[in-house]
């Protein structure tokens, strides 16, 4: 406060604010805190709590006639399902480079975007892809395979 009873003073003179303005400072800090807290709360908003896309866990009927090494891609999903003597396994068909969907071919997979090539077990053989295609968790039951695109399992994990 600029309260004093010692005239004359000049407005050019230093007229310090009382150092210990507890009321003013606590008011300011509380206001700042409230605004900051509100702001932080609000910043949670853009991070969506649910996505509009279907669940990453899904069930598909297991095709009965699937030759060993032949990929079955359930419609609308980016997963290749394989079946051989040791069991069933699923390999993600999303390129580890920049997320294009790779295409199954007799040797394995090829990525249309930047030319990465993969073997049928997901190993990179060519191109910029930094990692092998991940194997995904599969569980079987009642002729159906449940695939969880969010859970990666070590390559070679086959279930029967």
């Amino acid at each position: 406060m600029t309260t004093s009873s010692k005239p004359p003073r000049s407005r050019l003179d230093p007229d310090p604010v009382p150092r210990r303005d507890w009321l003013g400072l606590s008011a300011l800090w509380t206001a700042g805190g409230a605004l900051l807290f509100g702001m932080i709360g609000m910043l949670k908003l853009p991070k969506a709590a649910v996505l509009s896309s279907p669940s990453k866990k899904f069930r598909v009927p297991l095709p009965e006639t699937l030759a060993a090494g032949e990929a079955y891609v359930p419609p609308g999903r980016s997963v290749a399902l394989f079946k051989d003597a040791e069991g069933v396994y699923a390999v993600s068909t999303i390129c580890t480079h920049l997320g294009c969907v790779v295409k199954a071919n007799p040797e394995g997979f090829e990525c249309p975007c930047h030319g990465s090539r993969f073997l049928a077990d997901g190993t990179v053989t060519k191109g910029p892809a930094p990692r092998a295609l991940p194997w995904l968790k599969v569980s079987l039951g009642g002729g159906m395979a449940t695939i969880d695109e969010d859970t990666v399992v070590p390559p070679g994990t086959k279930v029967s």
Partner: protein
Amino acid sequence: MKKNKYLLLLSSAGTLLLLGAAAVDENFLKEWRRIQSQGQSDEGAIPVQLRQVVNEGLGVSDRCVSCHVAMGPGEQSVRGGEVLAPHKPVVHDPAEYGCTVCHGGQGLATEKDDAHGRVHFWPEPMLQESFSYAGCGTCHIALGVPEKTQLQRATLAFERLDCLACHRVDGRGGTVRPDGGGMEGPDLSGASLSGYDRDWYAKHLIKSRTEPAGPWTKTFQPVSEPDLKLLGAYLETRVAAPDLVQAKSVFLSTGCLGCHQVSGVGGDDGPDLSIAGFKDPGQVSFEHVPGSRVMENWLAEHFRAPASVVIGSQMPPAPLAEREIRQLTLFTQSLRRKELRDAFVPRDRVKATKFGEREFASDGATVYGAFCAGCHGMDGLGRRAPGLAAFPSVANPDFLALVSDAFLTESVTRGRPGRRMPGWLREGGLTKDEIDAVVSHLRTIGGTRQEPDPRPARWVTASPDAGERIFESVCSGCHGGQGQGAEGPSLANPVLLETATDTYLTETIGRGRRGTAMPGFHSPSPVYPALTQDDIASVVAHLRSLGGKK
């Protein structure tokens, strides 16, 4: 300035406090968080997060699985209480189809009352649990179900022939197992859906002869031809929705289509019922409905006493037992047709929309039950309802003995213009074959053929003047002064006069109709004198002139 600082301090502190409270509520106190925190999967506690089933094809994002976790995709193993429990096995996996498609309610909501649609501004509340099968009607509109007596007979045949010994149906039966272990006979609950071997009987026969011993020889007995037909009908209706099938068979015996349209088929005396299952409880009056304000109660009470629930309703009350009223309610709730993407349109609906098949079995009994029984009664003996004109007894033996099939066909085809009976040969009505089937069904329930009538259609030559006096004193009480019909049927109706033979008219007056209000005038009654043959002829002549006067 001190005041302003206090204002700032107190306002800020208050805001901080309130925001804190809101944060605590949002992050810790939500119901679904509490429920999910009790959930356990094989790998331990489940992550607490909003969950949902998304099916873009059906346009569904159901957050119901935020509480009913184990019904969600890939969460079958979650345990931890009733709410979290998995769905009982059904044809459509909720993890794929979502919940609201069948159950209604508000899938986008995450709080119980909102989600179950029990809030003021959600017009599609969840179906009550005991009415759940009504949800099937969203897609499966066209189940080929017959009317209720046929379904009953078929069901009884299945039980009488002891099929339940080996086969399970809707959770019953299947207790006997072949010797040496193994499976019982296949579960037939969804036989019609998944398809079944049409040669099953021949194969059963062979098996029962070749098996040395065990249930095959003891339990299985040869089946007669009519029973085989009944078993076939029973299997056709096994679509894993037993309640809905029964409810539909009740609907098809109640004649609602006589006045109401469903999917463009039926009469136009009453409101269209195609999406009656979506009726908003907020838009109807519950003033005269006892019990809670849910659509199920409203519908049931409306079937018991239409005119007291909907003021001015011309609908006769349904002559049904309580159990059947409940079934009719369930069926009405199932009238919730939604447009679907092609990939999701079920076969039964394709048959109806693309190939023009009926949405129900189309034998004479079912068509009669669906279109005629509401007014003429399932037994064809007519109905009387307070405040409404009597509905004629069309299966009356006295009536059937005097009319030809052509008369019946013509009557159904053209109806009675000006009365509630519409002509049925039209778009949205019946086909020619169906009308013939109905007529032969009438003969079946009436059990009476037409008596041979050697006379020509028109033979009465009497003068109408005497007839007019007699008509006024004797007939007009029921049939109206001009024969326009009142409590009794309209006689001046052009279609009637055109198709009725003189024999039919004179004999009807003379003999009357047993079991109805129409007395026979050959013999005197306490109220009326007897009429001579001439009197009757003159009355008939008068009737003919009524038609001419029009």
